[in-house]
């Protein structure tokens, strides 16, 4: 269904690098996208550096702040969680997990999806039709259910969360790349490469994949927020990462129950999560514009 995006609009392979360079220049002129990129950089840096420089550990319990009197204070800017742990260091650490889940799962989806889609599209014929039928079958699986069963079966292994989510998200990617490949395959420069004796693998690597990069990058920026939300959904069901680790989704699920009596438990993680998702969406739009200026 996503084949609608597969417009044969991209320039030929040798232009690949300069295409990215022009795109980058265009992106830099888009103020919303630059602001989004800056915001993401700040949040990511805070999440990585924060827990390192914070005087508190994520599992450190402050006995005088345990229970109910744990609103934000001079010592604990974001307040404390019901177990008396510093919320700021936990929010920043939770960001590490959420961002890592988002990126890793997207990378997994990228690798599987691009490899699969490019192979199917390039080989064509029966192989293509079998491969795409398989994708159709997988499309009709209720995936949430399978992710839940995987969590249950393998325990709350964080690596597995990445892989499981990535394994769910690659289908769209495969379809996009296949569509791109089909349109690229018929172009002259592929014929030329073939005539020059390039192997199929080399053609896929050198020509097909670089040329499908545009839509794939756009799709990636939209997949990361989706994955982060999916992880938060799992946390809401109680299938998130194990204590003392946490994620934004886990913190939000906990805070949502007390939004009236202890709003800081919800506000801080939700603010970080929403800002990140907002920024990712704007960045995605910006990259799309930059890669395909005809659209705007």
């Amino acid at each position, binding site marked *: *269904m*996503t*084949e*609608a995006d597969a417009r044969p609009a991209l320039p030929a392979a040798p232009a690949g690098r300069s295409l990215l360079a022009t795109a980058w220049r265009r992106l830099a002129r888009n103020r919303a996208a630059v602001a989004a990129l800056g915001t993401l950089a700040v949040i990511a840096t805070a999440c990585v550096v924060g827990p390192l420089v914070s005087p508190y550990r994520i599992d450190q319990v402050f006995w005088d702040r345990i229970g109910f009197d744990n609103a934000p204070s001079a010592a604990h800017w974001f307040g404390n969680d019901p177990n008396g742990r510093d919320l700021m260091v936990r929010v920043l650490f939770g960001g590490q997990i959420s961002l890592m889940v988002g990126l890793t799962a997207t990378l997994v989806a990228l690798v599987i999806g691009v490899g699969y889609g490019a192979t199917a599209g390039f080989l064509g014929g029966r192989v293509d*039709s079998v491969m795409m*039928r398989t994708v*159709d*079958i997988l*499309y*009709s*699986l*209720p*995936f*949430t*259910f*399978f992710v*839940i*069963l995987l969590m*249950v*079966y393998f325990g709350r292994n964080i690596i597995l969360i990445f892989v499981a989510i990535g394994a769910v998200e690659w289908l*769209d990617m495969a379809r996009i790349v296949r569509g791109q490949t089909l349109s690229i395959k018929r172009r002259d420069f592929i014929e030329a490469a073939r005539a020059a004796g390039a192997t199929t693998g080399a053609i896929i690597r050198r020509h097909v994949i670089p040329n499908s990069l545009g839509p794939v990058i756009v799709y990636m920026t939209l997949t990361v*927020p989706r994955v982060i*939300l999916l992880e*938060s*959904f799992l946390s*809401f*069901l109680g299938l998130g990462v194990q204590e003392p680790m946490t994620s934004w*989704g886990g913190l*939000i*699920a906990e805070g*949502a*129950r007390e*939004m*009236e009596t202890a709003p800081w438990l*919800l506000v801080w993680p*939700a603010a970080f*999560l*929403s*800002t990140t*998702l*907002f920024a990712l*969406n*704007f960045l995605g*739009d910006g990259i799309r514009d930059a890669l395909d200026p005809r*659209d*705007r």
Partner: protein
Amino acid sequence: MIGYAVRRLIVAIPTLLIIIALAFFMMRIAPGGPFDQERSLPAQIEQNLRAAYHLDEPVWQQFGRYLGGLLRGDFGPSFKYRDFSVTELIAAGFPVSLQIGAAAILFAVLVGGGLGALAAVHQNRTPDHAAMAVATVGLALPNFVVAPLLTLCLGVYLDLLPVGGWGSPAQAVLPIATLALPQIATIARLARAGLVEVLRADYIRTARAKGLPGWRVLARHALYPAVVPVVSYLGPAIAAVITGSVVVETIFGIPGVGRYFVQGALNRDYTLVMGVVVLYAGLIIALNLVVDLVYGWLDPRVRYD
């Protein structure tokens, strides 16, 4: 096109079979069983229960028994809800899920399409940015935050709408809104992108040059092709609404099948989960086919191979 639809339906049968087998055996592999609950059962009684549900048979035999039941349209007894068969539970819950799901998608298409059109017509001006920012809110907050926020503000503080339950139209408002919110965002983006492209096309410029007023150009010439990407998104949107309904049904206390899905998986209510999986897989296959057919009808460039 009919041949295409028939071929797709024929492929759907082995597809469903594969899905059923996958779900069935994954459930059995998962640790814990339907009788492992907070209150552990004495060994003898658990054995009685296992015998009553044929869990003492080899797994292959159980699978055969299940498939045999399915062929007769029997989803089997629920392990947890012992007074109702899975067929009865689904028959009671599915219409409810269908109603809020369909209403949410309709609502999302109307509002999202409207926001997208507004943004496209005023491209790169304030209404564009405002509409897109509003739409993005739906993508930036998990629905398990939106739902309690809505019930607290509109249900408790302002006392405008019921907090939960199912039965009156008023009780359906908040669940539908919660379910529609993320879809509004996506649809608004797709509609905007589609419209922007169409508005640049030569025939639109011609129509404008001929002096037709803006809204008529929009309605007459631009809307129809711009709908195409939105339609192509409806398949994934339906899948997303199904997932979202798990949270919405739990928080608003709605008697749909969405929460059977998660509860059943966590309780190891094997038959109930299988029933919902079969239902949803069938639904997704059917709706994807419908969406593809509608898509081809809207955009004649698409060929059915």
